[in-house]
C-alpha cells in the first residue's frame, strides 16, 4: 500500500492531468445524480405544493410518511429497486438492472421524499404569507401553486441542492442496482469503495477530493440561497 503522501500526490496528479477514466466517472456521477434530482423535483415540488395548500383526510399521515421517507436507508432502496428490476421482478422485462437508468431510478426514490418534504415546508410558509393576498385575486387551493412556487424559489433551490447532496454522496443503492461495472455504472462513490478495497488509494483519494469539493460547493450554494431568501423575506 502506498503511503498517504504518495497517494495524495498521485490523486492530485490524476485530477490535474485530466485523467480520462477519473473524469468519465465524475461525469457519469453528475449525469446520474442530476438527472435523478431533476426527475425527483418534477415529482416532488408539485406534490409538496399540493400537500401545502390543500386539506384532506389523512393529510397529516401523508406528511409524516414523507418526512419519514427522507431517512430511507440507501441499501434498502437499492434492494427494493433491485427486486423490481431483476429478471424475475415486475419490471424485469425492461432489462434496466445494472444500467445508469437503474441508478437514476434508485436515486429518484431516495431524493424525491427530500424534495417533496422540503418543498411542502417552503410552500406552506409562502401560503401562510400570501393566502389572503391571492385569495383577494380569487386564487385559492391548487390555483395558487405556480405563484407560491415562484415566491418560494430560493427555498426550493435549497431543497434541490439538498437533493443533489444526497444523490451524489450515496453509495449503497447505486452499488446494488448499478453493479459498479467499469465504464458503464461506475460512479464516484462506488469507485472509492472499490479502489480502497483494492488498495489503490490514489484514484480513491482523487475522487474523494472531487466529491468533497462538490459537497462544499453545494453547501456553499445552499448557504448563499438561504441568505438571499432571508434578504428577500426581511428586506
Amino acid at each position, binding site marked *: 500500500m502506498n503511503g498517504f503522501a504518495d497517494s495524495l500526490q498521485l490523486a492530485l496528479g490524476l485530477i490535474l492531468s485530466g485523467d480520462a477514466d477519473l473524469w468519465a466517472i465524475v461525469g457519469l456521477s453528475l449525469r446520474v445524480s442530476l438527472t435523478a434530482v431533476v426527475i425527483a423535483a418534477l415529482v416532488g415540488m408539485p406534490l409538496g405544493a399540493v400537500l401545502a395548500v390543500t386539506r384532506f383526510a389523512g393529510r397529516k399521515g401523508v406528511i409524516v410518511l414523507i418526512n419519514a421517507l427522507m431517512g430511507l436507508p440507501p441499501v434498502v432502496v437499492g434492494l427494493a429497486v433491485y427486486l423490481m428490476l431483476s429478471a424475475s421482478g415486475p419490471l424485469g422485462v425492461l432489462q434496466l438492472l445494472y444500467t445508469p437508468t437503474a441508478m437514476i431510478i434508485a436515486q429518484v426514490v431516495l431524493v424525491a421524499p427530500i424534495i417533496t418534504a422540503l418543498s411542502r415546508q417552503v410552500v406552506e410558509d409562502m401560503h401562510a404569507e400570501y393566502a*389572503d*393576498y391571492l385569495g383577494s385575486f380569487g386564487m385559492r387551493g391548487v390555483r395558487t401553486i405556480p*405563484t407560491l412556487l415562484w*415566491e418560494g424559489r430560493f427555498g426550493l433551490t435549497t431543497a434541490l441542492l439538498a437533493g443533489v447532496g444526497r444523490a451524489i454522496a450515496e453509495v449503497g443503492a447505486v452499488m446494488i442496482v448499478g453493479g459498479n461495472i467499469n465504464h458503464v455504472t461506475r460512479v464516484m462513490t462506488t469507485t472509492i469503495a472499490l479502489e480502497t478495497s483494492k488498495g489503490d488509494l490514489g484514484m480513491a483519494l482523487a475522487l474523494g477530493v472531487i466529491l468533497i469539493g462538490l459537497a462544499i460547493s453545494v453547501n456553499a450554494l445552499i448557504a448563499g440561497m438561504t441568505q438571499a431568501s432571508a434578504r*428577500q*423575506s426581511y*428586506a
Partner: protein
Amino acid sequence: MRDLGREILVQSLRQVLPENGGPDSVLTVTGLRSNLSDDLVLDIPRLTLSGTGISMVLGTNGAGKSMLIRMLHGLTKPDAGRVIFTGGSQAMVFQNPVLLRRSVFANLKFALKDQRLSRGDRAEKLAYLLELAGLKGKERQSARSLSGGEEQCLALACALARRPRLLFLDEPTSSLDPTATHRIETILRQVALMGIKIVMVSHDLGQVERLADEVIFLNRGRICERLPVESFFSGPDSAEARAYLSGQLVL
C-alpha cells in the same frame, strides 16, 4: 417618494380605474354570523353597501371590524349567512402591506394579470400606477426593500390596478408616517370621487373625520350605528358609540 399633484393623480386614476357610468356595485349581507371567540359572535343581520363614498368601520380592538371586512371580501367564510356582491370586481389592502418577492414593476404586472391588455396598454397603465405609488425610478427595485410607506402605496396601486368597484382597506395607514398617510388619503379621496365605493377600517378618528362619508360603528360583533360622519361625531345615538368617542368604551 415623489409628490403627487392633483392633475397627475386624476389623470393616473382615469387611466387605471373603471370608467364611471358602469353598473353600480352592490354588496348585500344577510344573516351573517360567525364566532369570533368563545363569548363573542359577529352578528350582522343585514347590511348593504352600494353607491360611492367612503364608509369607515370603527370600533374597539376585537369588535370584529377586520373579520367583518374579510368576510365581506370573501376571504373568510362566515358560520352562517350570505354575502352577495354584484357589479364588478373588488380589491383589498391589508394592514401590513403584502407584496410579492419581486420588483416593484413585477408586483404591478402581477396585479394587472387578469386584464387582457395589449403590450402598449399594459406599459401605459404600469407607468400611471408607478406615478400613483410615487415609485417612478424605483420600478426595478425589490418591492420588499421599500420603506413601509412606499410598500403600502405600492400595495394600494396594486389594488387599484385591478379596477375595483369596491375597495376594502384594513387600517392601511396604522404604521405609516404622516407623509405616506397623506398620500394614501389623497389617493383614496380621489378614488371615491371617481365613483369607487371604499370600505375602510380605521382607529384614527382624525382620519375618519378627514375621509369618511359615513361611519359604521361596530361593538362586540354588532353594528350599533351607521350614520353620516358629521352626525356620528356631533352626537351618536348609542351609548356605546358615545363611550367610544370619549375613550371610555372597552371590549
